[in-house]
Each structure stands twice: as structure tokens, then as C-alpha cells.
């Protein structure tokens, strides 16, 4: 282990009333900040402190729920500060995780229909599509170019939440290549289930139908939240994604999308996935070169 590369600045600690401790690792999003968050969260989860009820790692911060009748706030803060120091001291820049292929029908009719209902007063450019707007604000030629950029490089699940099982995704590319798109001017009251969306620098897959403010680019073909736990990928838990998962989107045409619908209905669909050890240092030094290596794990299946 050479010099530590996790974010070294001290985190900011603040209380969310008498049951929550909030730890902001950084105000800005970065892979290094997210890695530090995940490192602290896993140390805290492993420690199994009595009185800690929820450990929720987010993009660049973590939220901890505790029972102050069991664990006094000062003791919790001291414990988390210790884990933070250990994380900053290095030794934890590899994440044992998995890479997953997520099939998506980009520019699909389902999100297009909903988008049509929320234009005037909701969208920055009511006359065009979300994809055309996203291409324009990122200085790309057209929607097809944006779609290519969206699925060519993989993404890291940097947080799970908002609603049950919804992954926030951060693309594993240099900051200058990161796709950034403003959210809708005003949130929609409807978003199709499995919409692949984007707001700020984050991608997302809407696990359930409902309100949402992210731009809509396509629809994922298979469930990511299955409360009935009917598909094999949900045998152990109704939520598919975990923080630290790596996602590679695979573009589909209508026929391929329909074929997957049949597999889902028959209960035979499984996500293509492979275990990988994700090394932060290499991801930061040469993202695209390292991504090629990561994708080989999936292609070698």
C-alpha cells in the first residue's frame, strides 16, 4: 500500500434530531468520496454496535439511525470517527463486488408517452425529447451519441434509496466526461416503473412507478425490485442492487425487449453478472482502460 488515496479531509458530523447522525464526507460528488463513505459504512455494519438500527451509505455522505436509549450519541460519534480515521489511513481501496449487465430499451414508447404529458411548465425544452435535450446540454451531436455515451462505460451504484431499491448510479469516467443534465423544472407526478433516468451527475433506475424529476432516457427490461421474490435473482432479498455494484447498460431493440418480457413472465430471467474486485486507484488513474478490464469479467462468461 502506498499513499492513501481516499478523501483525507475530515468529515462533517451533524445530528438529525435525537435518532440520526449525519456524516458528510464531501460536499461534492467523487468516486473517492463515495469509496470512503462505503468503507466507513461497512466498518460500522461489521462492528454491529448495539443500538445502531440503520447504516445508510449515500453518494458522498452517510446517515446512521440509532436508538439513544441504548447507544448515547457521543459514543456513536466517537465510534464513527474512529472508523473514519481508519478509512482515511488507507488499506481499503479495493471493493469486492460484482458487475451486472442491465438491458435497456433506450428511446422507448413508455417513457416517451409520460414525457409528452409533462412538457409545458415541467421541461426546459418542451418541444423536444429528454434525450435530445440531454445531448444538447452535454454538447453532443444527437440523441444517438448521448445513448452511446450512456451505455459504453459502466456505472457504480453509489447509493440505494429514495424509494425501495432505487439505485443511484455514478459513471466510471473522468469528471470532464461525466454526463450532467438538470432535473425537470418541476417534478412529474408520474414516472414509469423501471425508467432509466438522470439528474445532475447521477443516473437512476426507478424501481417503482411514482413521482420523479429526473430526465427519462429509456426503460430497463427486467425488475430490480420484486416483493413477491419470484425471480431467481431475488430469492434472498426483494431488492436487487447494493451500493458498490457495477452496472453495464446493454441497449436493446423492441424485439429483444419483448423477449426479456417473456423470460420475466415465465420466471426464467436472470441478470448476467460476474464477481469483480474493483480497485479505486486504477479506476482513478485510467478509467477507460480499467473499465475494459472490468467488462472482460462479464464478457468472459
Amino acid at each position, binding site marked *: 500500500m502506498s499513499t492513501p488515496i481516499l478523501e483525507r479531509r475530515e468529515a462533517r458530523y*451533524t*445530528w*438529525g*434530531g*435525537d*435518532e*440520526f447522525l*449525519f456524516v*458528510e464526507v*464531501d*460536499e*461534492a*460528488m*467523487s468516486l473517492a468520496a463515495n469509496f470512503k463513505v462505503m468503507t466507513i459504512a461497512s466498518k460500522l455494519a461489521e462492528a454491529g454496535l448495539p443500538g445502531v*438500527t*440503520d*447504516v*445508510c*451509505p*449515500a*453518494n*458522498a*455522505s*452517510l*446517515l446512521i*439511525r440509532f436508538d*439513544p*436509549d441504548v447507544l448515547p*450519541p457521543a459514543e456513536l460519534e466517537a465510534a464513527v470517527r474512529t472508523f473514519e480515521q481508519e478509512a482515511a489511513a488507507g488499506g481499503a481501496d479495493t471493493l469486492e463486488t460484482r458487475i451486472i449487465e442491465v438491458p435497456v430499451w433506450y428511446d422507448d414508447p413508455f417513457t416517451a408517452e409520460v414525457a409528452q404529458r409533462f412538457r409545458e411548465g415541467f421541461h426546459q425544452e418542451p418541444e423536444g425529447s429528454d434525450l435530445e435535450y440531454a445531448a444538447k446540454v452535454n454538447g453532443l451531436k444527437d440523441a444517438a451519441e448521448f445513448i452511446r455515451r450512456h451505455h459504453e462505460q459502466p456505472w457504480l451504484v453509489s*447509493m*440505494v*434509496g*429514495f*424509494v*425501495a*431499491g*432505487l439505485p*443511484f448510479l455514478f459513471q466510471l469516467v473522468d*469528471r470532464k466526461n461525466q454526463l450532467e443534465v*438538470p*432535473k425537470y423544472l418541476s417534478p412529474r407526478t408520474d414516472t414509469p416503473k423501471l425508467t432509466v433516468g438522470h*439528474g*445532475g*451527475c*447521477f443516473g437512476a433506475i426507478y*424501481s*417503482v412507478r*411514482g413521482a420523479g424529476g429526473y430526465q427519462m432516457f429509456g426503460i430497463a427490461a427486467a425488475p430490480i*425490485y420484486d*416483493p413477491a421474490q419470484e425471480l431467481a435473482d431475488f430469492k434472498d432479498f*426483494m*431488492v436487487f*442492487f*447494493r*451500493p458498490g455494484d457495477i452496472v453495464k447498460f446493454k441497449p436493446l431493440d423492441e424485439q429483444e425487449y419483448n423477449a426479456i418480457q417473456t423470460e420475466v413472465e415465465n420466471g426464467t430471467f436472470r441478470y448476467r453478472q460476474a464477481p469483480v474486485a474493483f480497485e479505486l486507484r486504477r479506476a482513478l488513474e485510467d478509467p477507460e482502460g480499467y473499465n475494459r478490464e472490468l467488462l472482460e469479467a462479464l464478457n468472459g462468461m
Partner: protein
Amino acid sequence: MACEVISPGLSTTVQDRGRPGYYNVGIPEGGSMDRYSAELANALVGNPPEAAVLECTYLGPVLRLTEAATIAVTGAPVPVKVNGEERPGWTRLALEAGDELSFGTLGGGTRFYIAFAGGIDVPEVLGSRSTYILGGIGGVNGRKLEAGDVVPIGTSETEPPGAGTLPEEFRPTFAKEQSVRIVMGLYDHRLTEAGRESLLSSEWKVTPVADRMGIRYSGPGVEWKEREQPFGAGSDPSNIVDAGYAVGSIQIPGGTQPIILHRDAVSGGGYAMVATVISADMDLLARAAPGTATRFVEVSLEEALEARRERAAYRDRALTSLAEA
């Protein structure tokens, strides 16, 4: 044993003490909004505090008992009717097979609770029977009750307490004015001095946009500090890099209408939170009907912990009053 749903009411759901431990994947703790009222309903019929009850919102259901049952109705003041005849709230009632239970118009507050001796016996999902509608889990098929549902009721294994009614002094009030204690923090440093002052000195009114997920208030708004937004944080000064949301936390999107997240909170998002309602006042918040005039009172973490102890002691005295009679 069971009860048949003749008419479901506006939004009637099965709730218990909630589903802790899954907030990290976006599944909220949930459970009864007004924990105190639900717990006292259970105590009146001799149930353990973790038993599931029916939470009824504004307009109550009409239910028919398939067998004799012992029930209690607590929470917001509402006329309780058995076969059309009025019966008291906060009191243990013996119902016969075939009896019809219905309710009059709410006299304040938002929600009332029906406990059945033996508890509502729907299957547990992730350790709880609470209905989480957005995620479609818990309760009856993961949704609010519908006409024609048959709600299963368990068998009581414990004796009810000596007293059959809760003394007035232990019943909450349902006022049109509230003082809600908050701990400042999280992203309150993003407010200007004037913004902070406005939050703490203005009167805020509960809007009709209030449900199990959260409560929205109208008022004069607050002012945010201008800044160069950090990478990934969105363009409005009230935006942050998407983070976890504390239950009870106050966010003020765009600086206009504060939203307080409640039991079925979304677990995270990109709006700055500036304070959190203390655990002792979450039930109070659950009782706030639209139009309730609200003031936010800043307390320290130590004061919040003291209020938590006082609330627990008050509940224990209420439980003791039932046992000792």
C-alpha cells in the same frame, strides 16, 4: 377470526411498530404514524405493544365482525358506532359476531386507531406487518383496505388490563395550533441568518399535501445563501449531492414550502435538510390536520433526549393507570 370490510374509508392500513433496518435500500421504517395512540389501543385490549392495528385516516371504515371480538378505538376524536349506536373511545369494547363497526365525523386531528384483541394477523414482511404502499408490501396485499377484504385477526393470549378506559389526563389533545420542537443541523449552515430567523419565528400552516410520507407547510419561505454549487449537487441553492434523509427532517425545496418527512419517508434525495423534529414530537406532528398553525421551536440535542425520556415516562404512567385500576 376476521372482520369484513364493508366500506374501506379514505385510507385505512394495517400498521405496527414498523420495519427498522431496511432504510439503506429505501424501505422506510413506517408503522403507526401516532405511535402513542396505537400503543394505548393495544394496551386497552391486552395486546403486546408490537401487535398490528388498523390506522384510519379522516374518514373511517365500516367493518363487520365474523366472531365476537374485543376492540378499542384511540387517536383522533371520532364517534365510534356499533350497529349505529354510539360507544366511547379510549375504552375497551366487547363486540358480538355480526356486529357492524362504523365511525362518525372526525372532531380534529387526522388519524384514529382500532386495536383488536389478538392483533391484525396478516403475514409479516421483513419483520413487520406495516403496510408500505409505495413498495407494495405488508398489510393486506401491500395496499390500503378495499371493500370486500377480509382482515384476519389473531387469537389473544393475554388478559386485558384491569381498567377498561384510559383516564382523560392521558389522552392527547388535537389542537389547531402546535409548537413543534426541532434540533437545527444537517445543512442549516446553508440558510442565511434571515432564512434561519424566518424558519424559527414565522407561523407555518399545514397544507392539504400531507400523508404518511410527509407534511408540507405554507408560510413566508426562507432564504438560502448563494454559492457556487459543488459538483453533482444540482443548480438551486437548496440542492445538495443526493444524501440520506433523516425521518423528521425538514427540507425547504427552493426556499418556499418546508416539508417534514414522516414514517413512510423517502430515504434520500437532493434537497438540503436544515433541522429535524425530535422523536418525542413525531406523534404530535402525525396529528396535525391541514390548516394547523405551527411554530418550530429550537432545542438542543440534550433537551431532545430529555423530552424523549419524559415522553417514555408519560406513556409508562398511562400504561400503569390501566394496570392498576
